[in-house]
């Protein structure tokens, strides 16, 4: 692996041309949207907003027109999603479908699966969640135990998923489960599209440390699904999941989670920063410029059909460090204690993102796992 693979790629003019419209429409749609909710970024759930974006053509926009998408370039999609995040729009409802499940179904799905899911995804009406982690399988994903057993044309699924973001308000889960017994743990895994309204599924939200409910435990008890629920090839789940992770690890959501706090910090500091404030805000801005170039370079590789797993891990790890540094610096640069009730916008956003920050280097793969992938790419393991 060589760091030369980060090739500078400019957003093409036709994609860049979208930005003005997106900004204008968002400025209007979000004009009364509270600052503290903007801090939710891609964790903010608003089904109605997702539907409006779908009607605007901004969900699943890189999917083919035949399925209700916009046939837009990955860069056009990039412009739209980074504008949504920078504005702090609530995009979580459709986010996973737009980023992962939609492309996954387009790539590996059958015609019937595409017809069933893609148009509804593009309308911003069908929401997905990602069922990878299990209680005893976090970083060690290949150790998952949830199992699907074939019974004629059907599969019976038993097991448990955990930390599944939005499971309680999604329509479908793409779950990684064990379908075969093999000597290598990475073999015999398959992905299923699971209709979460079926009997045999129990979903229990887990409160996070702020008291909010984003993620869940999901139990499968003799859940019966058809053969048509398998996505891709039986037994190829591992390679499908690892390809999917490049999409999950390289986007602007991997370095913009704390952007709302950077915004309130700049205003709290005011027009005449002292030397330390100026230095740290400038350094963060420089890092942001660079992370964005790196993320765009990975987007270009994904668009070219490559699997930039190594580069995506680099963006995700540097991005998480950046996102976590913002609350650390914010509390250091202004004498303003964080407040979770009362207080000014900045104090509230500081409180919220300080508490969210630990998750930034967990979700989507931990620091240690990412650095392991990077080290492997460098030939060290």
């Amino acid at each position: 692996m060589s760091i030369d693979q980060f090739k500078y790629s400019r957003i093409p003019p036709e994609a860049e041309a979208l930005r003005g419209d997106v900004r204008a429409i968002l400025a209007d749609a979000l004009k009364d949207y509270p600052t503290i909710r903007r801090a939710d970024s891609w964790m903010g759930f608003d089904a109605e907003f997702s539907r409006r974006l779908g009607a605007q053509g901004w969900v699943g926009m890189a999917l083919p027109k035949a399925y209700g998408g916009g046939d837009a370039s990955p860069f056009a999609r990039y412009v739209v999603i980074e504008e949504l995040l920078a504005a702090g729009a609530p995009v979580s409802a459709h986010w996973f479908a737009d980023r992962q499940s939609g492309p996954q179904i387009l790539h590996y799905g059958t015609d019937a699966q595409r017809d069933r899911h893609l148009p509804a995804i593009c309308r911003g009406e069908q929401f997905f969640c990602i069922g990878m982690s299990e209680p005893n399988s976090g970083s060690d994903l290949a150790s998952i135990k949830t199992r699907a057993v074939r019974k004629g044309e059907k599969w019976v699924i038993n097991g448990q998923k955990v930390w599944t973001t939005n499971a309680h308000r999604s329509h479908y889960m793409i779950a990684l489960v064990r379908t075969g017994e093999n000597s290598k743990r990475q073999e015999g895994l398959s992905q299923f599209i699971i209709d979460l309204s079926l009997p045999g599924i129990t979903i229990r939200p887990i409160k996070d440390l702020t008291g909010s409910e984003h993620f869940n435990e999901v139990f499968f008890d003799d859940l019966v699904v058809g053969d048509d629920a398998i996505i891709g090839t039986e037994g190829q789940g591992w390679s499908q999941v690892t390809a999917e992770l490049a999409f999950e690890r390289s986007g602007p959501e991997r370095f913009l989670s704390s952007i709302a706090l950077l915004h309130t910090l700049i205003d709290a500091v005011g027009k005449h920063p002292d030397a330390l404030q100026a230095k740290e805000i400038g350094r963060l801005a420089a890092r942001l410029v660079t992370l964005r170039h790196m993320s765009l370079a990975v987007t270009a590789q994904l668009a070219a059909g490559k699997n930039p797993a190594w580069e995506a891990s680099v963006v995700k790890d540097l991005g998480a460090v950046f996102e976590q540094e913002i609350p650390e610096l914010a509390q250091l640069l202004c004498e303003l204690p964080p407040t979770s009730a009362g207080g000014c916008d900045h104090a509230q956003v500081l409180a919220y993102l300080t508490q969210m920050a630990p998750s930034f280097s967990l979700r989507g793969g931990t620091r240690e796992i990412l650095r392991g992938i990077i080290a492997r790419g460098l030939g060290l393991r």
Partner: protein
Amino acid sequence: MREIFDSTLERLFSDLVTVDVVLAAEGGNWPTELWQNIEESGFTMALVPEELGGAGASWADVCGIIRLCGRFNLPVPLPEAMLANWLLGASGLEGVAGTLSFASAGDLRIENGVVSGSVTGVPWGREVSRIVAIAQGEVPTVVLLSVEAAGLEPSANTAGEARDTFVFASVKPLAAAALPTAVGTRVLETGGAMLRAAQIAGALEATLNLTSTYAGERVQFGKAIGSFQAIQHQIAVLSEHAAASVMAAEAAFAESGDTFAVLQVMAAKICASEAAGIAASVAHGVHGAIGFTHEHALHLTTRRLWSWRSEYGSLTYWSQQLGRAICAGGSGSLWPAITCGALAEAKEVTV
């Protein structure tokens, strides 16, 4: 164009920029053969328009060249000559062959056609015959000066690279032209920062290669030290910062044309300056005592990183400029600046 440039120079440097040559240059022995080859290749004039005697290349074409200069610890002023010649060309003056450098700091004045004052920190000053600088006068003026008649106060950076002071007393420039207003009086400082950012990026690539190769070879406790997770993760972090620096330098060069893309240059120099310290620390840690010896080549790179990160504006210097510009615009100006790659307020602050 870029690929031909890069492969030509990589071959030339592989042949001629040996450890011995670099060490000898640090000791004051000018590498004549190396410089002659570089000059014959025409690269010192690459950024000069064709009608003024150059190759008409753009900054975007030469980022790889400058990274290579960093990767090989090149002990001659090729980046400096390229920037100096670019400014001559941009001012309508002919490019010059031969040893050439530039001065960005000092108090040069031009009056009645003669230049007086001093310049400091001139890279390779004592080794070159001419330098390009900007002298204040009725209008800021780009001047090409012979250093023959100037007083020299030698100085050097941590890598033994000459960073000299010259004093000029009523010297007639070899060439002079008004500085184009679009270019701005701090063009040489910004250009110098961009060069050093790309050289650091190149040096980081070298540091990464040296370090991961060594980690794969050195055996302790019965296995290669690179198989210890603690070592792997340190090198992974080094590679992240190296990749970020490469990316930021590439963006700065790609977006610079007749003027420098100031926001991208700032970002590149800030990221590179931060990466330099991290990389040197990881590399020396992983190499153990052997890397602390004069015998081992690691220090050729790390001693350059320690100087280049401070030259033409440290992390703090550029971060403060950028931070002030952003705060002046308020939070609403941050994201538009990042996406369009320019900061309205940055101009006021930096030019």
